[in-house]
């Protein structure tokens, strides 16, 4: 059974982390929280170090480690901070770190979505409710820290269960990942490539066509495919192959200083530059007689992340999108209904609270 990461290292790091988290739990407002945090940090650091060493040349960029450290540290602080407002603020920090990791994973739309929605809307709501449900500090009690906030409940059980869960998850992934990595990543790439959905490819072809026309190719080309090989090539055909050939020849002649046929308009030099480098290799004849040309695409032609996500969302999951909208509507309405104060009725109605006393 191959492992991605040495299990011993994993368990040792998790154990250290468990001890640290346990110590960091608040006890009556105090306790060895700092020491606990340090130990937890040591454990986390050990884990990340181990991962980095195991990855070797495949390790993600440095930013990953920074962001993950911040995220884990902030999460720890969320759960060990006795004061609710501070906990919420630390959570916002966690969100920011997570969104940083999203960027590393090239999901920039979700980065922004996360920050806007989560940090900007949900957490603000949380903060409002926290403030609503907390008594204001008075003269005698500046620190209105409730006892139920000050002490954590069942720290041993919680830590134990949490780290058992973590251990189980990571071990499982360790083993299955190891087996997955045993297969050639190249094979995966080919599988992955086949996963490209058709709408994305159509979009890609459209963009390629626009880009080629911008560069100088005639407008009646139609892109057949975009290559799967770097440098990214676009394959296109044209209705009037002979005219295009003449233009290409004229452009080449201009470049090399050869006599130019004045009746033929030459292709733009930029377009010429994008044609396949090899003189002979920029076109070939398809079996059905058409000529197929290939040109290098400029960079940045692929759909941006937001385009891709949008395409995926609307093309493949339209129903889910609608349902999500309905869900949000329901949530809004019910939140309003639930949190209403009992209304005094005007004519003959009785005030009815919405939540009966559950005692």
């Amino acid at each position, binding site marked *: 059974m191959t492992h991605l990461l040495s299990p011993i290292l994993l368990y040792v790091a998790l154990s250290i982390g468990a001890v640290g988290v346990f110590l960091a739990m608040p006890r009556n407002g105090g306790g060895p929280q700092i020491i606990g945090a340090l130990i937890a940090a040591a454990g986390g650091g050990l884990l990340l170090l181990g991962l980095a060493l195991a*990855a070797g040349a*495949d390790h993600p960029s440095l930013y990953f480690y920074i962001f993950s450290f911040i995220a884990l540290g902030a999460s720890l602080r969320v759960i060990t901070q006795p004061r609710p407002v501070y906990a919420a603020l630390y959570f916002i920090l966690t969100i920011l770190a997570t969104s940083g990791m999203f960027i590393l994973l090239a999901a920039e739309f979700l980065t922004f979505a996360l920050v806007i929605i989560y940090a900007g809307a949900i957490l603000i709501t*949380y903060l409002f409710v926290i403030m609503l449900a907390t008594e204001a500090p008075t003269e005698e009690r500046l620190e209105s820290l409730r006892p139920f906030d000050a002490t*954590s409940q069942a720290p041993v059980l919680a830590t134990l269960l949490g780290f058992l869960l973590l251990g189980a998850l990571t071990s499982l992934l360790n083993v299955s990942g190891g087996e997955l990595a045993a297969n050639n990543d190249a094979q995966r790439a080919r599988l*992955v490539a086949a996963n490209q959905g058709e709408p994305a490819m159509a979009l890609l072809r459209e963009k390629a066509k626009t880009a080629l026309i911008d560069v100088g190719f005639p407008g009646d080309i139609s892109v057949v495919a975009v290559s799967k090989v770097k440098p990214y090539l676009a394959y296109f055909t044209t209705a009037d192959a002979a005219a295009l050939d003449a233009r290409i020849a004229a452009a080449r002649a201009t470049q090399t200083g050869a006599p130019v046929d004045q009746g033929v308009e030459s292709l733009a030099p930029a377009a010429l530059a994008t044609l396949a480098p090899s003189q002979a290799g920029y076109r070939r004849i398809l079996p059905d007689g058409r000529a197929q040309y290939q040109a290098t695409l400029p960079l940045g032609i692929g759909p941006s992340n937001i385009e891709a996500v949008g395409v995926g969302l609307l093309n493949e999951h339209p129903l889910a999108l609608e349902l999500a909208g309905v869900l949000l509507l329901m949530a809004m309405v019910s939140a309003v209904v639930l949190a209403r104060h009992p209304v005094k009725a005007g004519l003959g109605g009785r005030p009815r609270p919405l939540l009966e006393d559950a005692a």
Partner: protein
Amino acid sequence: MNALAGSMSALIAQSAPSLASAADMLSTIGLYHYLVVACAMFALGVIGFLSRRNLIIMFLCTELMLQGASLALIAFSRYWFNHTGEVFVIFVLTVAAAEAAMALALVVLLYRKRETLDALAWSSMRG
């Protein structure tokens, strides 16, 4: 920026057998990095849920768990070179928002009943 650009172009990177490039693809060990962090966030959320007594903070820890799940989904989405994971995360965000609204409304109501945010105020069963 270069790394960013490289990552972006990696989205449409396809490789021939001779051109497999580490910069374009997320290797399995790389995926594992992200997954470990995601699981750790999830586990921390579980610990927080089990050890806090403030209702609002308990829900916050639930949100933390959802964060972990989102990170894992995005990582997988990168790993398999499609956007399904990201689409899913959009829905996760939706649900998180709806759930937060409901949960907080309920917490407000509960607070009105018992004047406290303590979760143990609501345990009236004798074990």
